[in-house]
C-alpha cells in the first residue's frame, strides 16, 4: 500500500543486560498510514516504548533487533549511523515523557532548536532563529521571543513540553513519535498539550505513534489503538471499537477495571495476578495465566493477530483463540 508511512513487520527486541536475555518485544506487526494517529496502549513492561524506540534504533549496544521496519519507504533496520542521523529529526522525530531530561540544560531553548534546523538544512543562523520563533508561536508559548532565550530550568513542565514539540516539528518531519508526553503533567495542562498535538497533527498531516498507559488519553488523540501485553499486540482497531467493543480478555479486563465504571459499586472488577516475567515467558498466550476464559490450547499456542473472518484489513484484529 502506498500510503503506509510506518511498516513494522514481526519486530522482536531482546536486551542482553542481566543474567537472562529479556525479550521486551516479541513479534510486533504494526502499520501506520500517512496522517494517522495510533496509540500504543499498555502497562509498564508491555513493550510499547521499546517498539517505538526501535523505529529510531535508540536501544543500547548489544540489543538484538529482529524483523523489519520501514519508515516513509526507508528500511530503518539497515541504515548506517550517518543515514540514521539524517532520519532522526528530519523524517521521524520524538517527544519524550520528561522534557527536563530530554532537553540540554546548558543551552538556551532557541539555540537547541536552531541547532536541529541547521543540522538538517542548509540555512543561515538568522533564518534558523526566525523559524525557531515561528515554531514557538505555533505551539503558543507566551512571549516567544523572550522564551527562546530561556534555559530549560527556567520554564514550567507544560511550557517545556510545548518547546519540545516545537523542536520535534522544526524540520517538518513526516512522523512524530510521542512517548507518554503528558504523563508528567497536571490534568489541566495535559489536555492543553493533547489538543495541541491533535491540532498540529492535522495541520502537518503527521503520522503519530502515541505511547500511553492511560485509556482516556488514547481516546482523546488516537484514530486507532493497539493494545500491548507482554511484548505483543493483543488487539488493534479503531479507537471507538476498542473502547466500546473490546474483544481480547485483557482489553476487556483493562477497560472493566476503570474506576469510572464503578460509580455506585463498592468494589472494582480487577484482573487477578500480575504480568509475566519477560525473561521467563509462559509458552502459548502470555495472558493465559490471568485469563478467565482460558482453554487448554491457550497454554500451548501463541495466538496470531488476525482480523475477524471476512472483514477488511482496516477493521480490528485480535490475538486470541476465542476469536480464531
Amino acid at each position, binding site marked *: 500500500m502506498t500510503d503506509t508511512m510506518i511498516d513494522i513487520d514481526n519486530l522482536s527486541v531482546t536486551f542482553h543486560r542481566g543474567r537472562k536475555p529479556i525479550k521486551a518485544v516479541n513479534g510486533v506487526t504494526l502499520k501506520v498510514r500517512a496522517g494517522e494517529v495510533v496509540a500504543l496502549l499498555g502497562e509498564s513492561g508491555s513493550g510499547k516504548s521499546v517498539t517505538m524506540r526501535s523505529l529510531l534504533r535508540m536501544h543500547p549496544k548489544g540489543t538484538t533487533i529482529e524483523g523489519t521496519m520501514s519508515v516513509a519507504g526507508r528500511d530503518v533496520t539497515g541504515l548506517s549511523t550517518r543515514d540514521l542521523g539524517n532520519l532522526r529529526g528530519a523524517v521521524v522525530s520524538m517527544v519524550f515523557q520528561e522534557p527536563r531530561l530530554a532537553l540540554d540544560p546548558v543551552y538556551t531553548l532557541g539555540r537547541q532548536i536552531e541547532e536541529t534546523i541547521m543540522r538538517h538544512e542548509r540555512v543561515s543562523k538568522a533564518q534558523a532563529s526566525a523559524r525557531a520563533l515561528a515554531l514557538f508561536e505555533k505551539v503558543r508559548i507566551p512571549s516567544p521571543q523572550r522564551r527562546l532565550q530561556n534555559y530549560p530550568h527556567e520554564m514550567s513542565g507544560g511550557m517545556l513540553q510545548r518547546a519540545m514539540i516545537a523542536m520535534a516539528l522544526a524540520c517538518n518531519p513526516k512522523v512524530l513519535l510521542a512517548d507518554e508526553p503528558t504523563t508528567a503533567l497536571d490534568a489541566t*495542562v495535559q489536555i*492543553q498539550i493533547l489538543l495541541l498535538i491533535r491540532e498540529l497533527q492535522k495541520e502537518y498531516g503527521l503520522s503519530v505513534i502515541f505511547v500511553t498507559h492511560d485509556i482516556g488519553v488514547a481516546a482523546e488523540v488516537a484514530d486507532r489503538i493497539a493494545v500491548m501485553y507482554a511484548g505483543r499486540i493483543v488487539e488493534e482497531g479503531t479507537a471507538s471499537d476498542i473502547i466500546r467493543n473490546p474483544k481480547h480478555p485483557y482489553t476487556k479486563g483493562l477497560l472493566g477495571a476503570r474506576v469510572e465504571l464503578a460509580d455506585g459499586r463498592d468494589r472494582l472488577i480487577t484482573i487477578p495476578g500480575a504480568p509475566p516475567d519477560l525473561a521467563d515467558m509462559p509458552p502459548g498466550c502470555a495472558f493465559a495465566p490471568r485469563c478467565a476464559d482460558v482453554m487448554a490450547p491457550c497454554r500451548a499456542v501463541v495466538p496470531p493477530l488476525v482480523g475477524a473472518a471476512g472483514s477488511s484489513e482496516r477493521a480490528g484484529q485480535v490475538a486470541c483463540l476465542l476469536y480464531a
Partner: protein
Amino acid sequence: MSAVISPYNLDPGVGERGGPAQPLISARGLLKHFPVKSSGFFGPKKVVRAVDGVDFDILKGETLGVVGESGCGKSTTARLLMNLIVRDKGDLLFDGETVGETLPLAQYRRQVQMVFQDSYASLNPRLTIEESIAFAPQVHGVPAAKAIARAHDLLFRVGLEPSRFAGRYPHELSGGQRQRVNIARALALEPRLIILDEAVSALDKSVEAQVLNLLLDLKRDFGLTYLFISHDLNVVKFMCDRVMVMYLGKVAEIGTRAAIFGEARHPYSAALLASMPKMDPSERTMEPPLSGDPPNPIDPPSGCRFHTRCQFVEDICSREVPPLASLSAEQSAACLMAVPGSGHSRAPILGETSA
C-alpha cells in the same frame, strides 16, 4: 465505643474518645512557608507559600480526597498533618485534643500513618519486609517475636503469602507488591488515620484497581479513616466521601463527592473536572478548560489566587481574597461568586442566603 484493647495496643488511653460526631482531625489555619534563596544579600526575603492558611476537618470513618495541580500544597498538607514538616502556624486537633499539647506527638504519630507514592524509596532496602513491618511496633516496645507474628498477619491481610514474602527484600517485589507492604507497615501500629499520598499513582491500572479494592476492604475491617491525596479525579470519585480541591496553597472548594462532582461551585474545580480526558472518542474535548500553567507560589496573584486563569474574573477578584464560604451543609467554596454581596456581578444578592 471503648478503646480497642489488644495485647498489641500498649496504651489503653489511645483510642476513641470524642464520640462519632467529633472530627478525627481538625486543622485550623495551617500555614507553611518555605524560604527560598533571595537574589542578593539585601534583596527581599522570598517564601514559597506552600500551604497558606488551610482549614478543614476529617470526619471519623470517612475518606477525604485532596485534589489539585502539582504545587498546590497537597503533599505539604499531608506532611504537616504527620508533623514531618513543622507548621509555621495553625492548630491541629486530633479527636478533640491539641497535637503537641494535650496529646504528645509520639502518641499522635502512632495513630496516624502514611503511605507514600514511591513504594521503593519508602522501604529500607536493607531490611526484609517482615523486619520493615515489625520495626515500628518494636520501637514502641512490642517484643520482637510478637511484632514479627503480627507482621505475618498483616502480610496475609494485604494479600501477600507470609511464607513466600516475609523474608524478601524490597527489590525482590513488584511495585504493586511493595505498595501492599507499605500499607501493611502503615497498619502495624493500629492507626486510626492513614494518609495516602498518591499511594496508587505509580501503579499500573490493573494493579491500581487491586490495591484500591484492598484499601476499601481494610478500611471496613479496621474501621480506618483515610486522607486520600491524588491527582486522578476518577480514582478520587471512586474512593472518597468528601473532596477538597486545593489551588496554590489554599482550599478552593470542599464538599461531598456528590456536590463536587455534580455541581462544583468554584470555577477552578469545574475546570479541573472538565480537564479529565473523555473516554468516548466521539465526545472529545475541543477547547482546553484552562489555559496556561499554575502561577508561581512564590509570588501568588493578589486577591483570589485563581483570578489570572478564571473566565469569570472581574476587578474585585484581584483585590479581595474570597473567604471559604459555606454554600450548604455539604459544600463550601472560596469564590466571590458564592459570597452574597461580595461585589462580583454573579454573586447572590445580600440578604438572600443560598440554600
